């Protein structure tokens, strides 16, 4: 499977990573090489094999419904890029 430069830009947009038009070709070439390696999977017969999502067959543990956290927003916001009045600030969100 070979990617087009449009594919690369679509992925970049989906992943919110800017890729300069000039760099697209190099990114595309390296991704193509990676997929050439990965594509070996496509020909493996896996009929009837249950996908393995995890190394261990675990049961989900549950916690009791109790408030255990206190307000630590001042600590958490110490290194935040932009805050005011306890809010994280971002460029205007348009719904």
């Amino acid at each position: 499977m070979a990617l087009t430069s449009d594919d690369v830009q679509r992925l970049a947009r989906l992943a919110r990573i800017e890729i300069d038009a000039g760099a697209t070709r190099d990114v595309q070439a390296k991704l193509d090489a990676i997929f050439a390696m990965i594509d070996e999977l496509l020909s493996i017969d896996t009929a009837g094999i249950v996908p393995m999502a995890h190394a261990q067959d675990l049961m989900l543990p549950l916690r009791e419904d109790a408030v255990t956290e206190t307000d630590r927003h001042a600590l958490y916001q110490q290194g935040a890029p932009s805050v005011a009045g306890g809010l994280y600030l971002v460029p205007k969100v348009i719904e």
Partner: protein
Amino acid sequence: MKTIGQLSEALRLREVSSVELVQDALARIAVAQPRFNAFITVDADAALAAARDADAARARGEAGALTGIPIAHKDVLMTAGMRTTCGSRMLAEFVAPYDAHVVTRLRDAGTVLVGKTNMDEFAMGSSNESSYFGPARNPWNPAHIPGGSSGGSAAAIAAALVPGTTGTDTGGSIRQPAAMCGITGIKPTYGLCSRYGLVAFASSLDTPGVFARDALGCALLLDAMAGHDARDSTSLDRPPEDRSRALRESATAKPLAGLRIGLPREYFGDGVDAAVAGAIDTALGALRALGATTVDIGLPAVKHSVPVYYVIAPAEASSNLSRFDGVRYGHRAGHYTDLADMYCRSRAEGFGAEVKRRILVGTYVLSHGYYDAYYLKAQQVRRLIAQDFARAYRDCDVIVGPTAPTAAFPIGAKTDDPVQMYLNDIFTIAANLTGSPALSIPCGCTADGLPIGLQIQGNHFEEARILNVAHRFQQATDWHLRTPPGVESAVRKGGP
């Protein structure tokens, strides 16, 4: 450089204090840092304060085996009040507001944290070259890689800076650098050590583990670090184990009598460097001499482990790294036009090329129309690989082979060819896919004097067994005691 076991004994006998050990470590780091770049952050004041506390605890009679031992954490583990960068520009200034569970456990065991070690960015790499803070270098030859992603942790021990370090292993990131740097490193069973506070790369594979000079040191660190954590839903609740007890028992003539060692055909074929193959052969001879028998086994699906890994790990990573968006912490671009532009630029600037590449691969394999073909397929092949191992462990107790197909390659040799870089992990990835424990010990060196690693894998929860095999090997050999040329001379006179 002494081992953790030797230092523990010296501390117990008051031949040395923790403050002296830490002062020595800090002095060594100061000398070695320009050469090996093993550390990203060193906190001398905090380390000396903790060492004084450790000595005080000892004076009160409250010391354990690890009390006062200086260690360093891979910079992917959160350390409260200390910078935690993940080797990335994204978190270059990030000060962690809490401790990872394994950090807490090792502190509670009395270890003294000296600093944070260099690593491939977000643990993505096999050479430490993707670090935003520059590559760590191999103490055996600074022109070569130390391995990765936990390269700084491995280099720090090989360079005799600290006797123990933590690492994380997602596809070989402890074992491969251990092999490259000629030290001992273990990746335990998935779920044995909590992932809480480990900045996630691939959550279903990420495994905290440890490095030390020898297997006994690893056993001591691992015992302190392992344990159930209710904050990690994949953490296992098992009774505590003393993994060093069997190691401390005195050796018999044939300490490995009855041990069946599986030799996978797939680990001994083409692609393995001749020097590596030779060293492994010699090591197998030593293991047989200790009483073990060897049996040929087949792990036919293991050859697919690299492509399986490079679907599953990037898929999980693409999602795990979405939180780095420049909103609540981390790097935010200086200039942007709107919200979407802020995201795209902050992430483009904050992440390096390899991380971006893997995010794009992961985004692709999860995207509409490709999920079944790639992601589900990879999970199916993951099961085939796990089935291979389950079958093999009916015929053998441990599986042994090379940790990596070659010794450490020169810095820059593979940076422009990601696929060649990925193939380095061909022998280590399977243990992450199955979740089983595996370790690497030094077993020889190339003509150029670069170390060669022997990988010992075991079934789930068989850490004690593989550590014992490694320990008996180390009792019969001295590869683990060798130090890189020039390293001892870097130590100030009179140090331990």
